[in-house]
């Protein structure tokens, strides 16, 4: 048996009210691609933060190459050969690629040398990237490459990647996987965090599965089915949302030639977007984050008003109406950002019920709020959508992300919308709750509403959508029937590898 590169024994970390990691042990061999698999809240992030020196464990020990390893800060971890690519990038948009890379290094070389090094590494590992480009102009996939190259320049022994594919198109995922395989063949171990099972089966040699902070299983992903891993991860088998075939009815929402210039220099403009959604239909809008999803939702919800005739409900233009007038007309929205946009963090659930349900549920009379009515509506949402909270008087920020998401979606669905637009409906929600939310969206469409689901999760979109289209740099592709679409076709709709060819041959089919 070859000696382990990183060995973890009995790591435990508790936060007030929750044990994030409970006696976690596993090991990674040099050159191994090791998956860390678990639902949101299973303790994956805490675990890698301990390895990277961001969090100190309460108990347990780690060893790297046989020596004791207890990094007090990320710098110590990097010095020991551990590098990490975070899910959220820490890049400055107004600086170029080389400058951003230099900012993350302890002793950056001269700019000219660094640019050459960046070119060398990017060619060696098939990560096309121009060191002189502004980060603000890069796609999410290219930004990720900046982070990866920053790590690779430090010649790491262990590379940690936290949900790296959540912002990538399928083609970009292929390029990334080739890079990771090449790294692994050169002896760099990779700790790969994800909840996407097929990816893990395609890439990883070993998998450690966490549930509620504990290691519940280890397996070799190639040898087991995705369904089996899902059961290990969730602890029970999952029902896939069921849908009955339904005939599409009349056009409820139609958007024609909708354009919007960006609010900030690096914002995304919307370019000539047109689509229709019929009663009883679910339209899925895919796309990598930052391609105009927030902007599109804002123009549909009424937070941003657009030219006359751009947004029409039941054939009548609602372009000039504000959010509440659109709600009254039957168009409801649930934005992606739960805290601060869909809900006010410091307000109670009852108060947050008033936020969007006031008009349709008649929660005020002559301007005076009917708090009793608001509370009973909030309780109804809590009950029907299984929101785990002691009461409706709890502040929104005290709820876990998944529970608040259930509340936000439930709040809109229970208002019986004619048209519902949701952005990332199951982001950060555990698998069983996600299934419940998807089922609720399908039921809503079944009942004759038109539903638009904006999401980055392609599996989710294929599961719920009748038709699928992609948002790429503010342009919307022609909607196509979702049934029968392959991942490859979807990837091309999403903009392929964002106009970049892989340096390695044949990565882009």
């Amino acid at each position, binding site marked *: 048996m070859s000696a382990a590169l990183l060995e973890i024994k009995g790591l435990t970390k508790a*936060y007030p009210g929750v044990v994030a990691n409970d006696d976690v042990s596993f090991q990674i061999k040099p050159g191994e691609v090791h998956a860390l698999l678990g639902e949101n809240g299973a303790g994956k992030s805490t675990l890698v933060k301990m390895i990277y020196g961001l969090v100190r464990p309460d108990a347990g020990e780690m060893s790297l190459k046989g020596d004791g390893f207890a990094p007090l800060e990320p710098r110590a971890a990097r010095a020991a050969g551990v590098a990490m690519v975070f899910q959220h990038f820490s890049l400055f948009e107004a600086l170029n690629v080389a400058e951003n890379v230099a900012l993350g290094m302890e002793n950056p070389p001269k700019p000219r040398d660094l640019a050459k090094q960046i070119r060398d590494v990017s060619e060696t590992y098939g990560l096309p990237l121009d060191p002189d480009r502004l980060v603000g102009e890069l796609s999410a996939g290219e930004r990720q490459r900046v982070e990866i190259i920053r790590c690779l320049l430090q010649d790491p022994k262990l590379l940690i990647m936290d949900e790296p594919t959540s912002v990538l198109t399928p083609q970009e995922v292929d390029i990334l996987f080739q890079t990771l395989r090449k790294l692994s063949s050169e002896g760099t171990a990779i700790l790969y965090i994800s909840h996407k099972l097929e990816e893990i089966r395609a890439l990883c040699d070993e998998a450690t599965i966490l549930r509620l902070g504990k290691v519940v299983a280890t397996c070799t992903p190639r040898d087991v089915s995705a369904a089996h891993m899902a059961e290990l991860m969730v602890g029970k088998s999952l029902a896939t949302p069921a849908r009955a075939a339904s005939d599409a009815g009349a056009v409820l929402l139609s958007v024609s030639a909708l354009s919007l210039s960006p609010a900030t220099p690096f914002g995304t403009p919307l370019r000539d977007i047109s689509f229709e959604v019929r009663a009883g239909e679910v339209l899925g809008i895919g796309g990598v984050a930052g391609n105009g999803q927030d902007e599109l939702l804002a123009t549909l919800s009424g937070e941003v008003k657009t030219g006359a005739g751009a947004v029409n409900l039941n054939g009548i233009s609602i372009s000039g109406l*504000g*959010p*509440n007038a659109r*709600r009254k007309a039957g168009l409801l929205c649930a934005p992606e950002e739960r805290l601060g946009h869909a809900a006010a963090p410091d*307000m109670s659930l009852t108060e947050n019920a008033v*936020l969007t349900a006031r008009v349709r549920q008649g929660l005020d009379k002559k301007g*005076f709020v009917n708090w009793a009515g608001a509370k009973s509506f909030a309780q109804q949402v809590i009950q029907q959508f299984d929101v785990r909270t002691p009461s409706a008087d709890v*502040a929104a920020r005290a709820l876990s992300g998944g529970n608040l998401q259930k509340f936000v979606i439930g709040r809109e669905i229970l208002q019986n919308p004619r048209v519902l637009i949701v952005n990332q409906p199951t982001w950060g929600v555990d698998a069983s709750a996600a299934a419940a939310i998807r089922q609720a969206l399908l039921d809503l469409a079944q009942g004759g509403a038109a539903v638009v689901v904006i999401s980055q999760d392609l599996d989710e979109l294929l599961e719920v959508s009748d038709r699928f289209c992609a948002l790429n740099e503010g342009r919307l592709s022609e909607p196509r029937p979702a049934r029968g679409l392959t991942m490859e076709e979807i990837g091309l709709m999403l903009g392929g590898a964002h106009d970049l060819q892989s340096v390695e041959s044949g990565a882009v089919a």
Partner: protein
Amino acid sequence: MIRLIKRPAPSPLWSLATPVVAVILTMIAGGIMFAALGKDPFEAIRVIFWDPLFHERFASYSRPQLLIKAGPLILIAIGLSLGFRAGIWNIGAEGQYIIGAICGAGFGLAFYPSENPLIFPGMVVAGALGGWAWAMIPAILKTRFRTNEILVSLLLVYVAEAILATAATGFLRNPEGSGFPGSRNLARHAGTDNPELIANTGMHWGVVAAFIAVIAAYVLLNRHILGYQIKLAGQAPRAARFAGVNPTRLIILCLGVSGALAGMAGLFEVSGPAGQISIDFGVGYGFTAIIVAFLGRLHPVGILLAGLLMALTYIGGELAQLMLGVPASAIQAFQGMLLFFLLALDVLSNYRITFGAEAKA
């Protein structure tokens, strides 16, 4: 090591307790300051907090002063608190107070020597409109040109003071005043006076207005959708837009209400306790009201109590200057300490303090 840990939800106990703890800490720190100045700290604290209400000789004079001083502070602070809750920072209430007084007094003097009972209500309206108009300047500049309302409203205070000086020495000067600066005395003329309603209590129409404002603000914030929108806009601006709140309308409304209330406070002052427009009419109620608003946690009932407390330190401070020879600047420092401790302790309602290493967390 001392560490701050964010609470999942604000602690209701600490939200209520911090003002009390802040007052106690101010007494301790203030006592040390008075001791350093060579005064007996216990006597100084007693003179400031106790004697104004219960001293056998001075209390009969200073007790009515409590409401006279608290009235304008509460009235202005209530208006400011609405804006502060919505994240709209009107720092120039002093200017709105002065302009309100000038407009109200000007209205009353225009009808001099008539004693028509409708003149005083007209003065109140004119005062409110004056303060409102002065607050509309930062409001319109902010909504049209995105200027910063903090700077504009603050700088307009100095403009208002210049107008006040011009009024006292020029267009509102008492023609029978032998050339001395200052307007006719409004308080000594029936029709323009704002009299003490109950003898020896200090209760005048301004205090009544302050109490009404407290109740109205309480109802607005707790029951009305507008109060809900004000809170929402302050806590989560993006969520407020999602809820259909129009930010421009809210800015105009909050600055308008706070300006109108400050203007009314100015009018009640000039027609009652102050009596006339004079160069030194502005004594800083508009600025102190900011402290009162925060000391009262931007809550109407809290502001009522904070206004009374602040008035007490004013009166007690004057008494301490008189009886103990404490310098006026020491009294101001004492009031500053109160705000300092309150804001510092604010952390406790949102954070928990733990001692010792991280391991316990």
